[in-house]
C-alpha cells in the first residue's frame, strides 16, 4: 500500500506560514506597509485587531500590574484561536525560534551527532513555575530579559543588538547538548501554550493506525515523540486514535513522512476506534 507522494506538504506549508507571518511584521518597517504593527508580544493588525501573547500577559499580571483592556482583549482573541488550532501550533507554525531549532535538529542528523544530555520534558513546567514565582516576588517580568522567542522576533523587527548570542546559544544547545533541547524540554513559553493545547480542537489523528508497519519514521521526525505512542499503538479499549498529548505542535511532519498514510488532521472528537471492517 506504499504510495509515492510528495513528503513535504505540511513542512512546506509550515515554513511558508512562519516566513509569511514574519514577512507581514517586516513589511511595516521595511516597506512602509503597515498590516501588522508591533511584535509577537503584542501587536495591532490593520490598526484594528489587537493580539497579545498569553505568556506575556500572564507574566505582566503576575508581576502585579493588571493590563489594560486592549491587552486583555488581545489575549482573549489569541487564546480562542489556539484553543481551536492547538496550543503548541504557535510553536510549530508561528514562533521564529522553531526555524532555528529545526535547523539545529537537521544539522545534528546530518552530522550524526548524538547529544547525551536528556533533560526531562517536565523541566519546562518547573521553569515556568519558578519564573512566575520570581516575577511575583520581584515585580518585574524576569524572563523577558532572556526570552529567546521575543528576543529573536523583536530583534528582526526593531534591531538585533547582541540577541544573536542568545540564539546561537539555543542553536548550539540543541545541536550539541540536548536533542530538541530548547523547544521540547525547556521553553516556558511553549509550556504555556501546551497548557492551552490540553483541550484544543484540531488534532493529528491516527485513524488508520492498523496500517502502521513500524518503520518508526514518525517517531524520528517528531519533536515530541512521546505524544504519538498512545494514539498510534493503542488497541481495543485502550487510547483512541487522536493525538491528545498537549505538547503536540500540530506540525504535521508525521503526516508527511508516513508512507502508510496513517495520520491526518482532524478534530479531537470521536476518539474511539470504529469497529474495523
Amino acid at each position, binding site marked *: 500500500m506504499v504510495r509515492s507522494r510528495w513528503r513535504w506538504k505540511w513542512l512546506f506549508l509550515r515554513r511558508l506560514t512562519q516566513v509569511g507571518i514574519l514577512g507581514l511584521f517586516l513589511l511595516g518597517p521595511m516597506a512602509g506597509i503597515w498590516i501588522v504593527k508591533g511584535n509577537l*508580544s503584542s501587536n495591532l493588525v490593520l490598526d484594528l485587531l489587537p493580539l497579545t501573547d498569553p505568556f506575556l500577559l500572564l507574566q505582566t499580571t503576575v508581576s502585579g*500590574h493588571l493590563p489594560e483592556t486592549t491587552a486583555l482583549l488581545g489575549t482573549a482573541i489569541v487564546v480562542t484561536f489556539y484553543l481551536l488550532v492547538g496550543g503548541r501550533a504557535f510553536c510549530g507554525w508561528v514562533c521564529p525560534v522553531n526555524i532555528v531549532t529545526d535547523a539545529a535538529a537537521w544539522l545534528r542528523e546530518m552530522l550524526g551527532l548524538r547529544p547525551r544530555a536528556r533533560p526531562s520534558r517536565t523541566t519546562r513546567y518547573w521553569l515556568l513555575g519558578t519564573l512566575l514565582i520570581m516575577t511575583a516576588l520581584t515585580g*518585574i517580568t524576569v524572563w*523577558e530579559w532572556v526570552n529567546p522567542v521575543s528576543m529573536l522576533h523583536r530583534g528582526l523587527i526593531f534591531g538585533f543588538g547582541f540577541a544573536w548570542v542568545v540564539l546561537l546559544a539555543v542553536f548550539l544547545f540543541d545541536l550539541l547538548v540536548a536533542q530538541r533541547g530548547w523547544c521540547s524540554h525547556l521553553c516556558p513559553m511553549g509550556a504555556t501554550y501546551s497548557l492551552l493545547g490540553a483541550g484544543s480542537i484540531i488534532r493529528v489523528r491516527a485513524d488508520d493506525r492498523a496500517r502502521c508497519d513500524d518503520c518508526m519514521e514518525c517517531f524520528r521526525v517528531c519533536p515530541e515523540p512521546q505524544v504519538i505512542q498512545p494514539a498510534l499503538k493503542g488497541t481495543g479499549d485502550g487510547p483512541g486514535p487522536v493525538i491528545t498529548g498537549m505538547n503536540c505542535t500540530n506540525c504535521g511532519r508525521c503526516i508527511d513522512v508516513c508512507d502508510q498514510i496513517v495520520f491526518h488532521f482532524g478534530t479531537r472528537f470521536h476518539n474511539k476506534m470504529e469497529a474495523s471492517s
Partner: protein
Amino acid sequence: MTACGAALFGGGVTLYATNASAMPAQALRPPGVLDEETFLGACVRCGLCVRDCPYDTLDLARVGEPVAVGTPYFIARQVACEMCEDIPCVKACPTGALDPELTDIDDARMGLAVLIDQETCLNFLGLRCDVCYQICPLIGEAITLELDHNDRTGVHARFLHTVNSETCTGCGKCEAACVLDVAAIKVLPITLAKGQLGRHYRLGWEEQEKAGKPLLENIIDLPDRMPAGGGLQ
C-alpha cells in the same frame, strides 16, 4: 533534580534581570510611564509606542544596550520628545505601562531638566544664549530667566536659566538644543534630579500664612544686625 535545575536556572535569570534593570541617567522613558519598577512588570516590549511616535523619538533597547532589553526609551540629546497633544505613544500602549490617565501632555514627567554645568552655560558666563529658554515648549514656565548682577563686567545683568520642577515635563528639547558641544542643561530622571525635604520639616513662613498669625505668640523681635556697618534695624 529537574525541579532543582529549573529553580537554579530561573534564579540565575532573575539575578541577571534584576541586575540588568538599572537605567542609565541619559535614558528617558516615554510620557505617562509608570514608576520604573512597575513599568518593568507592565511593559510587554511590543514596540507599539515606538511605532506610533510620529517623530521616531522612541526606540526599543537592543540586547547589549544599557537599558532593560526591549523596553522603550529615548536619549534627549539625540531626539527629544515633541510633546504631541494627542500623546499617540500612550494611546498605543496595550497594557497601560504608559498610563492612559495621562491626557494632558503638560502633565507628563519624563524627567527633570537641570542646568547641571554653570561653568560652561553661556548665560551663566554673562552672554545671552537663551536657546534652551526659547525652545522650551512651556516657554516662560518650565524655564525662567532670573536676573543676577554680573560681577565680571560690573554693569551688566546675567539672565540665569532656572528650571521649575512643577512645570518641566522632561521632554528634553532644552538638552537637545543646547549649543555647547556637551549640553550644560540635561534632563535627568526625577529621582536623581530632585531633593526632598525631611518629612517633618515645616517652612515657618508658609505655616504662618496658613495659620494667618504667628505660630508662637509673644516672640520678642530682637533687632537684626546688618552687615558692613549697616547698624541695627
